[in-house]
């Protein structure tokens, strides 16, 4: 199917811009860097859309189901026969969908940054990093080989590291970037070992082959991997759970979510791109990519489900108490990803049961738009007020109408108010949960309400509340910043109506979805109530929120400190790993291991000092030794070694 080969261009263009700007940006393209990057992205986006069109509406369907196409594949590093890292391009519904999302959102961010990052010293570097990230992310979604996934997985990790640490002179930014990288790296360890296990038992790293081998119950590989076990769980379970840990790390699932809020130290557009729309959903994508295998093992699926649900709830609760708008958004992201995760968890591979899968992908799709929109709006706001704190804001609706409208649209979408995009996807998820697992459904419902509440808390306290302290001299930012907002807002309204169930499903076959009003009543109703409460509390300034906070007392504090997760991690690293493992080892090395080496030397010197009396300087003593030697030899050879 080489007629998809042109898709190679989609990742390569950003790569080109990265190389170009990375090598020569600082010298030659200090001003034009932005344009170059944006143009590259524009090109890839167009190609991506073409590809999507071609796949979904021209020749993707075979016998009523979307099938997988390997556009191209090249053995990159051969380990042993059968086992090798291949670089390739896989075309199937989710990869195409992700292509569109990634390139599109990235384009928006590129555009927005033209204005937002104007006059930065390392403007070119910034765009170079963006290019690198986009390339890696596209490479990730197109992977044919599980090791290829891992490879790009690491690359997105590092580009996120570089972008979070973009303001490298801010210690907090440096710390945040380190935290993000190390936490995800820790998760990747699980991923890596998972890969090793899968690769070992299935004898391949090629995803489609691997899926093929591990999903047919009679295949020797499947039997081997399910019979082999460790600590009561089968090797398959272990592999999948480990892989999921990797995904959880990237997707900021509990308990590996701690890096995400801090990651907000990076430039806001970056947060929009990486920590809202694309990279953080990589975990979801990974699980979806291997979903056929996951669906073979209930334990793994349950882990996915409960971790997802819990994270969704936890994040929502925390989000209600945060005062930094970006952190609020960060937690909302975590919460939404939780949705996607448990949606996958409650799904099955084929037919009607595949609803959750489809819903999850759908939500991933819509979420990308409204969440990036939220972040970009937040960016615009921060650009204006030069602060992330809610208290510095308020009454901005007159100053920045466009942003205001866009933000409102986004809020409605994420809250799941019809007919905005979020509504459709969230309904599907709730439905899936309802069919599979009532508990999860309840959690999801409650979380939905919370979501609506904290989003509108944010909305009202930014744009209404008290009168703006800022003068009208501030304008809303350049055109290049407004356009993305408008486009994204339009999408946020529009994308909900895409017949997603027809396009992206677990087994490729179209899925009949019907949302009856009765089912929708509950969530929508709750949402609206939550919105009203938020309006009541935050539309005008009043002591209400404070009262509630006080009434909750300790609980409130615990929540606002994010359940002391960070402190826990700090304790483990600073109080356990460094002093109890690192220091002793370093000490042992210097004093014991090295000490032994030095001791050998000093002992030798000691001995040589001890026997020096032999050389007494008295010639008679020498003669005596001579005679002693002779006698000794004589005794030895006459009596001993006769």
């Amino acid at each position: 199917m080489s007629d998809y080969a042109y898709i190679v261009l989609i990742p390569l263009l950003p790569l080109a811009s990265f190389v170009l700007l990375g090598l020569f940006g600082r010298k030659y393209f200090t001003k034009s860097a932005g344009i170059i990057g944006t143009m590259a992205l524009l090109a890839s986006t167009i190609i991506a859309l073409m590809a999507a069109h071609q796949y979904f509406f021209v020749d993707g369907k075979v016998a009523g189901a979307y099938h997988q196409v390997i556009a191209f594949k090249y053995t990159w590093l051969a380990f042993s026969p059968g086992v090798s890292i291949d670089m390739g391009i896989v075309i199937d519904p989710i990869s195409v969908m992700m292509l569109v999302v990634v390139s599109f959102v990235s384009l928006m961010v590129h555009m927005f940054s033209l204005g937002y990052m104007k006059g930065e010293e390392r403007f070119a570097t910034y765009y170079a990093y963006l290019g690198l990230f986009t390339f890696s992310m596209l490479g990730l979604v197109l992977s044919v080989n599980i090791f290829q996934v891992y490879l790009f997985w690491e690359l997105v990790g590092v580009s996120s590291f570089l972008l979070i640490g973009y303001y490298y002179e801010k210690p907090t930014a440096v710390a945040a970037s380190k935290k993000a990288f190390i936490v995800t790296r820790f998760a990747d360890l699980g991923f890596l070992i998972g890969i090793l296990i899968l690769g070992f038992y299935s004898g391949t790293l090629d995803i489609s082959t691997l899926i093929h081998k591990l999903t047919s119950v009679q295949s020797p590989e499947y039997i081997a991997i399910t019979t082999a076990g460790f600590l009561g769980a089968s090797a398959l379970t272990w592999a999948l759970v480990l892989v999921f840990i990797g995904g959880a790390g990237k997707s900021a699932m509990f308990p590996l979510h701690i890096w995400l809020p801090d990651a907000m130290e990076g430039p806001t557009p970056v947060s929009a791109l990486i920590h809202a729309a694309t990279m953080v959903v990589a975990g979801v994508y990974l699980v979806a990519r291997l979903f056929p295998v996951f669906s073979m093992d209930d334990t793994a699926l349950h882990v996915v489900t409960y971790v997802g649900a819990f994270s969704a709830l936890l994040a929502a609760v925390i989000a209600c108490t945060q005062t930094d708008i970006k952190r609020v958004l960060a937690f909302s992201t975590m919460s939404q990803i939780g949705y996607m995760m448990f949606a996958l968890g409650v799904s099955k591979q084929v037919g009607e049961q595949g609803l959750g899968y489809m819903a999850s992908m759908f939500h991933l799709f819509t979420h990308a738009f409204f969440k990036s929109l939220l972040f970009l709006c937040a960016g615009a706001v921060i650009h204006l007020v030069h602060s992330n704190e809610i208290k510095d804001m308020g009454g901005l609706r007159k100053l920045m109408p466009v942003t205001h409208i866009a933000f409102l649209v986004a809020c409605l979408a994420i809250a799941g108010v019809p007919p905005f995009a979020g509504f459709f996807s969230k309904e599907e998820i709730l439905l899936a949960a309802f069919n599979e697992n009532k508990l999860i459904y309840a959690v999801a419902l409650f979380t939905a309400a919370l979501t609506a509440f904290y989003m509108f808390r944010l909305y009202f306290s930014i744009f209404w509340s008290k009168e703006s302290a800022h003068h009208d001299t501030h304008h809303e930012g350049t055109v290049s910043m407004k356009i993305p907002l408008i486009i994204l807002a339009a999408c946020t309204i529009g994308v909900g109506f895409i017949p997603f169930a027809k396009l992206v499903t677990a087994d490729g076959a179209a899925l009949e979805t019907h949302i009856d009003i009765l089912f929708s009543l509950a969530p929508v109703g709750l949402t609206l109530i939550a919105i009203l409460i938020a309006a009541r509390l935050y539309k005008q300034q009043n002591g209400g929120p404070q009262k509630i906070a006080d009434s909750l007392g300790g609980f409130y504090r615990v929540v606002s400190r994010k359940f002391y997760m960070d402190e826990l991690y700090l304790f483990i690293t600073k109080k356990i790993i460094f002093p109890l493992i690192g220091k002793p080892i370093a000490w042992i090395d210097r004093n014991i291991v090295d000490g032994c080496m030095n001791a050998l030397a000093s002992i030798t010197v000691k001995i040589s000092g001890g026997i020096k009396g032999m050389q007494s300087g008295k010639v008679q003593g020498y003669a005596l030794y001579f005679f002693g030697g002779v006698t000794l030899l004589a005794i030895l050879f006459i009596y001993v070694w006769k």
Partner: protein
Amino acid sequence: MSSLSEIPLAHILFVSTALFFIGMYGLFTRKNLVTLLMAIELMLNSVNINFIAFNKYLYPGKLDGVFFSLFIITIAAAEAAVAIAIIINLYRSHQSIDVDDATEMKY
């Protein structure tokens, strides 16, 4: 001559060995360098006795032993000459011929 042949070889060897170790004892214990030389002469002479005795009792046919002892005597003389010279020089520098005074170099 016959009177000599009544003494068994063992006795003579005993004497010579005794002489040798007396010499060695002298070498180990006396402090005066000249005395040390004398002690060495004792040892050499005991060896001479050995040679002569062996030659006379065991191998009367050839005269190897006798000749050897002649050479030993000569060389002992030469050795003594050089040694005395050295000792005199030592006396010049150390104002003493006590062996324990010449222990500057040690360890």
